[in-house]
């Protein structure tokens, strides 16, 4: 039987002052290595869910297990450490630290996580070698861009560098928040294919968030956040 990457049970979130739940998920499970497409327009609680999984928000109640660990129980710095060790993030755009080089951007997670660092070093390659390998896999001409400021890269290149950073140290879960929204149709598909092939190599779970339902076909599972999040319906009812 496959291991479970994410288990959500009765997860509720509201800001302290209000009784109104922004998020209310009774049950949701993601298996290890699964590629989930999470479709949700803005306001559907997408950011909240990602911040909860990332451990930068605390749920009002319920359980949120990542790789068997209920992160709700962890203290804040343990959450930060857990995020650094087991997760990889790709954001919509401006994914890179402008004053670091391409390779420095890719190796950044290893500065905060010894787990990721040791995984790479134990496999027998240096951090830079691993970064260059990943970049090459993602079709970045490393020698060409190595010493150029990251701000000079094209958006597509920037997103691939960010992907390489997310994949560094083979984290169990990759969270991609609309990584393709700034790309055109052809680079979008190529990007997703590259992301998939790399995640398969490291057996990473992918949570891919987008409002563009069109992309969902390629994924193992297509989830509408609207259906998952009961709070959304409640809120909708109130609005009506």
């Amino acid at each position: 039987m496959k291991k479970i990457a994410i288990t959500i049970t009765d997860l509720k979130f509201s800001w302290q002052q209000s009784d109104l739940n922004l998020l209310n998920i009774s049950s949701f499970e993601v298996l290890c290595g699964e590629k989930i497409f999470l479709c949700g327009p803005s306001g559907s609680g997408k950011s909240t869910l990602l911040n909860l999984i990332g451990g930068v928000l605390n749920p009002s109640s319920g359980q949120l297990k990542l790789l068997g660990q209920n992160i709700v129980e962890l203290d804040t710095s343990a959450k930060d450490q857990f995020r650094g060790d087991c997760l990889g993030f790709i954001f919509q755009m401006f994914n890179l630290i402008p004053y670091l080089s391409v390779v420095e951007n890719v190796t950044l997670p290893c500065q905060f996580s010894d787990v990721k660092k040791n995984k790479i070093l134990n496999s027998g390659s240096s951090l830079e070698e691993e970064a260059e390998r990943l970049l090459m896999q993602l079709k970045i001409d490393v020698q060409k861009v190595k010493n150029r400021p990251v701000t000079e890269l094209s958006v597509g290149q920037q997103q691939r560098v960010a992907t390489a950073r997310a994949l560094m140290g083979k984290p169990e879960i990759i969270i991609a928040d609309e990584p393709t929204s700034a790309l055109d149709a052809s680079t979008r598909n190529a990007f997703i294919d590259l992301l998939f092939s790399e995640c398969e190599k490291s057996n990473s779970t992918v949570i891919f968030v987008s409002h563009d339902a069109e992309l969902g076909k390629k994924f193992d599972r297509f989830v509408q956040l609207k259906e998952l999040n009961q709070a959304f319906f409640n809120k909708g009812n109130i609005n009506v």
Partner: protein
Amino acid sequence: MFKIISLSKKSLFNRKFTTCLTIFSIALSVVLLLGIERIKNGTRKSFESTISQVDLIVGARSGPVNLLLYSVFRIGDATNNVSYDTFKEFDSHEEVEWTIPISLGDSHKGFRVLGTNLNYFKYYQFSGDQRLNLREGREFQKIFEVVIGADVARQLSYKVGDQITLSHGTSRVAFQDHKDKPFYIVGILKKTGTPVDGSLHVSLEAIEALHIDWKEGAPPRPGEGITPNQMLAVKLKPKAITAFFVRLKSKVGIFRMQREVNEYEKEAMTAILPGVSLQQLWKTLGLVEKVLQVVSFFVFAVSLVSMLIALLTTLNERRREMSIFRSVGARPRFIFSILVFESGLLALLGILFGTLALYLGLYITQPILEDQLGLTVGLFAFTMTDIFYFITIFIGAISMGFIPAWSAYRKSLSDGLIVRL
């Protein structure tokens, strides 16, 4: 810790322009704060060492500052004279080691003429134990010989052997010249950085000779005056002097001697302790230095505010950067530290460059300051005040850094991982 250093270094370098401006403004305030401190100390030192080794200054009864001003700084005029006999009496006093008489009242093109005797060259000291030295020529021996200070020589381009005319009175535009009695320059003194540089020194007899044929305060009518040649034949005895400096054999007797002068029955006189009076005078002049200090503190405050602005304006565009750090596992504390560290680094670089600039500036200007103003500015030693300023600037900058750091900390908490700009 290492990653904070290397990241903030790179982050600052990425914003070269604002970083340089901020460093420049901090460096500027360092230069001002330390420079003013240096100049203040230098001026006070050279001020307080205008005259040394003198135990008492004696003149006709007046306020101590007035006496100090005209006798030492040659500013203003004496209210009255001291008779030569009285001076002689104190000169031969058993407790007195030496005296220097001074007689003021004449001038040459705005420079003061000072009548004295050879003790002046022998005993006059400044800056501790520096004595007067001749750059050229010799001391005066005959009546119509004059030894000029370094500034007089430089500004009027005089050299040994030149013939000059002294004027009656002390205003720059003299209306009564002693044209009938020309003087010859026989010596030029080395630069001292004291009022000696701006003085012309003649013998007491010469002062007497200048006015010997004057009647009721008016110069002799043409034909009635005594010619210089006749003068040499006359045995001249000075009648009065303006003031005299006294050195006692033992310091113990200073206050008794001062009282003796003040209570002298035949003549109303005042004796002052030069060191004490110099300090009193400096205190009244000290307002200027306080103002300078306040101004440089304002520059310091402005430089801190400009640093604050430089850091705060970039914060919004750095929100995404912070969320990237958070996403790879950085704690909020890290976000806070990186910004505090940046301001600390700015302050350190500012202090470093400011100090370098100051020393470079002093190194270049020191010979000029010393030559033109007689100002010795300490070059290599850090004083406690300097270190106090360094610490103040550093702590000030760090605490200013807490504002953007705290703001970034709050923002990164509320933004979480997903920043919507």
